[in-house]
């Protein structure tokens, strides 16, 4: 039992530390300011792995959610988070800031072409 826990701790820590070597995809930045996305539309190449850096400039946490992309992530206030997506088929992939999802400003789209 203790052995299992030590193994879990070790493997999780190794993954956390070693994974920087694994990811090397294109990066795009999305900013959340006053519960609104900037920019509202991001054009990306289809068929490639992508990194989306979401920067939350608000003091309150935000939740990036996109059902078409099958991604959701809470980003604490005044911090940023990386979301890995792709490869995407060509098309439009809308996303929302879930805590203010009804606001028009809190919606955006990723266009893959």
């Amino acid at each position, binding site marked *: 039992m203790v052995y*299992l826990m030590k193994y879990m701790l070790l493997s999780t820590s190794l993954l956390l530390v070693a*994974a920087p070597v694994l990811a090397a995809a294109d990066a795009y930045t999305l900013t959340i300011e006053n519960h609104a996305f900037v920019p509202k539309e991001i054009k990306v190449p289809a068929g490639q792995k992508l990194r989306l850096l979401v920067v939350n400039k608000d003091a309150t946490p935000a939740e990036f959610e996109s059902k078409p992309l099958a991604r959701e992530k809470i980003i604490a206030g005044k911090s940023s988070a990386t979301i890995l997506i792709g490869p995407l088929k060509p098309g439009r992939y809308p996303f929302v800031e879930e805590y203010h999802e009804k606001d028009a400003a809190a919606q955006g789209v990723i266009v893959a072409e």
Partner: protein
Amino acid sequence: MFGAALIVFRESLEAALIIGVMAAATRGVAWRGRWIVAGLLAGLVGSAVVASSMAAISNLASGVGQEIFNAGILTLAVCMLAWHNIWMAQHGREMAARARDTAQAIQQGSREGSVILLVVGLAVVREGSETVLFLYGLAAGSTEGLHATLVGALAGVGAGALVGGLLYLGLLRIPLRWFFSVTAVLVLLLAASMASQVARNLVQADLIPSLGAPVWDSSAWLSQSSPMGTLLHGLVGYDAQPAGAQLLFYLLALLVIGGAMLWVGRRQPATDLRRR
């Protein structure tokens, strides 16, 4: 205040369902009440720690530290639940028969105790850390401020605990001859749903392929944010839009753990006869 209550209710419901099932499944284990409370307290402390280091965790592993961390603690919880079920399959009847023997009871209690502590603690850390962050932001941004948010949060936790308690009491009403079989199935389903969450986190961390995302979309029939959907999600792992990898992990967990339980359990009748 109402916003805080609702969110906290949903998060604490998930943890409360797990705790309710575990409390029922470990019926007969010595001192299990204390282990559950210990798990709760450890989980609360853990939530505060994880919430405050969320930014640091997130940035590990080139930005997907959060997903890997979640996958790690979920996998540990799955192993704990699997161990509990397999152990119960082997010793369940023995345990009920030997409950009179105090020394044996205490020994079984401390072995199971660490399982209870970990499962409860991990469930609370998972739900609690997200909730802490959310509440912090809500309190900071809300016009009503910290006080109203805290009151709302307490109401939410209370409601979640109530549902968990009702589940526990409801389970206790099951006749003894079916009781451990039912709780074994519930724990197995919990383990499988956690396994599916491990898959979800690994897919989001881009460590495994999604194998079709989503495989189906049943949110028109039963939305995951509806009360029934939340309940089914917590107990059985219902997901309105699951990825293929999630279904795969779910099935694998059922087969592997269920198989181990059956294999270990079939050796029992001979053992019982010998002890007579």
